[in-house]
């Protein structure tokens, strides 16, 4: 009742919008309780702040969108109230109407061939409800008003991958794909997550991990180099006689905190194969016949 009094006395209201129709200039608010209606109807001045991705070309496009949104959002056939308005209607509702269209990083997203699909989002929250990561972390972990799988691909695109939380969001996923399956507008969230991981790595530039991976790539790139490295490892294993360290030093210790460093075997697989097999691949002792 207290809130109702405030609604009845307010002179200015600020709203968002779920959709904006280019063809007619119509704004649409989809809601449940009626507080949206109060806000859109009773004050003298209405200021609507709308992201540019909410713009759809035609009035007819509302047909499928208004069908999808409540069903994917709360599982209802339809939400209790949907309001549409186009500018000022003399004698009905606010007589002073403003629309603020917001870019704030959205054109940056739009320019990305992979990431731009995130702008299709209709904020139904279906991907949140099925996400095993969101289920355990909750919304605050995403550091933004957009939580869950969609937040994990939208925030790093809108804000860039500079901050710690934005650089970590693309990794906050097992890439299980449940979000993609639930999404009514077919946003391939796992695809965008993987693409963003590339961007995070590129933005970081040279890192210990990058150098390590590069070295591994060089090593695995040639059979001769791999053989040498393996022989060195088994030699080290034999010389240390089981006294190999169980933990790695420095930044690599993170990996061995929860795992044992495996001891190199006394013989590599390739050496074992050469010792026990003929050139045609059959076992010398005939045990595979």
């Amino acid at each position, binding site marked *: 009742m207290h809130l109702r009094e405030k609604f*009845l006395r307010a002179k200015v209201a600020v709203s968002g919008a779920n959709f904006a129709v280019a063809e007619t*200039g119509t704004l649409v608010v989809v809601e449940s*309780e009626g507080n949206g*209606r109060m806000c859109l*109807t009773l004050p003298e001045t209405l200021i609507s702040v709308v992201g540019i991705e909410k713009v759809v070309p035609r009035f007819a496009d509302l047909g499928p969108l*208004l069908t999808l949104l409540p069903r994917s959002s709360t599982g209802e056939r339809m939400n209790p109230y949907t309001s549409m308005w186009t*500018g000022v209607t003399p*004698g009905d509702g606010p007589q002073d109407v403003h629309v603020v269209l917001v870019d704030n990083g959205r054109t940056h997203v739009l320019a990305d061939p992979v990431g731009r699909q995130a702008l299709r989002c209709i904020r139904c929250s279906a991907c949140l409800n099925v996400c095993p990561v969101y289920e355990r972390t909750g919304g605050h972990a995403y550091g933004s008003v957009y939580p869950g799988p969609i937040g994990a691909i939208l925030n790093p695109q809108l804000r860039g991958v500079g901050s710690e939380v934005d650089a970590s969001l693309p990794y906050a996923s097992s890439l299980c794909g449940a979000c993609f399956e639930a999404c009514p507008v077919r946003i391939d969230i796992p695809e965008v997550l993987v693409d963003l991981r590339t961007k995070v790595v590129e933005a970081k530039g040279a890192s210990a991990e990058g150098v390590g991976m590069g070295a591994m790539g060089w090593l695995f790139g040639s059979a001769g180099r791999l053989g040498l490295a393996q022989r060195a490892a088994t030699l080290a294993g034999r010389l240390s006689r089981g006294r190999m360290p169980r933990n790695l030093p420095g930044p690599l210790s993170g990996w061995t905190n929860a795992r044992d460093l495996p001891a190199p075997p006394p013989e590599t697989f390739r050496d074992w194969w050469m010792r026990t097999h003929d050139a045609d691949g059959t076992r010398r002792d005939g045990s595979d016949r």
Partner: protein
Amino acid sequence: MSARDEMLARIRTANAAAGAGPTGRLVPPVEVQHGDVDLFCENVADYRATVVRTREGEVAGAIGRVVGDLGIGSLLVPAGADPDWTTALGPEVSVLQVDDGTAISYDELGAVGATLTSSSVSVARTGTIILDHSAGQGRRELTLVPDRHICVVAARTVVDDVPDAVARLAALGVEQRPLTWISGPSATSDIELDRVEGVHGPRTLVVIVVDDD
């Protein structure tokens, strides 16, 4: 360069960089399907609105009974409503005719027993009623502030699904009017996805469905 030009330029550059998306009509034209009126009534009732079915010529009687049953003392009727609708009200009911120019405070509106309106389009599959707030439906506040809304739905205005309703609104040429889509009385589903009634909008919704003769 204005902010608007700057933004439009950025959008064009972005679209060019990423390759244009789909162009032209995204949604094929809809041939409006008539709705199943039984289904409409079932869905409206399922959202805990009261449904009364009646026939052309018997609407006034139905309204009189609803108003009597709810013990409504004052009935607000927007200009343009069928004058016959209020002919069967009991003598204790005062009728408040409101036209576009009538100033009425929110306190007065809040004290009204119910608002009686017609409707523009309804949707069978979702149990939705759409007001375009033209004659007989009144400006938006008249069906928002009072606690009860009695809404008359003509069976011939019931369409099948949401896209049919969108197409019908466009065909009626009312897309740019204020439009209110109502699916049951005020409710919230935000808490654990359970629908809880009565938050801000009217708590009682009575739908009088008038079958064609």
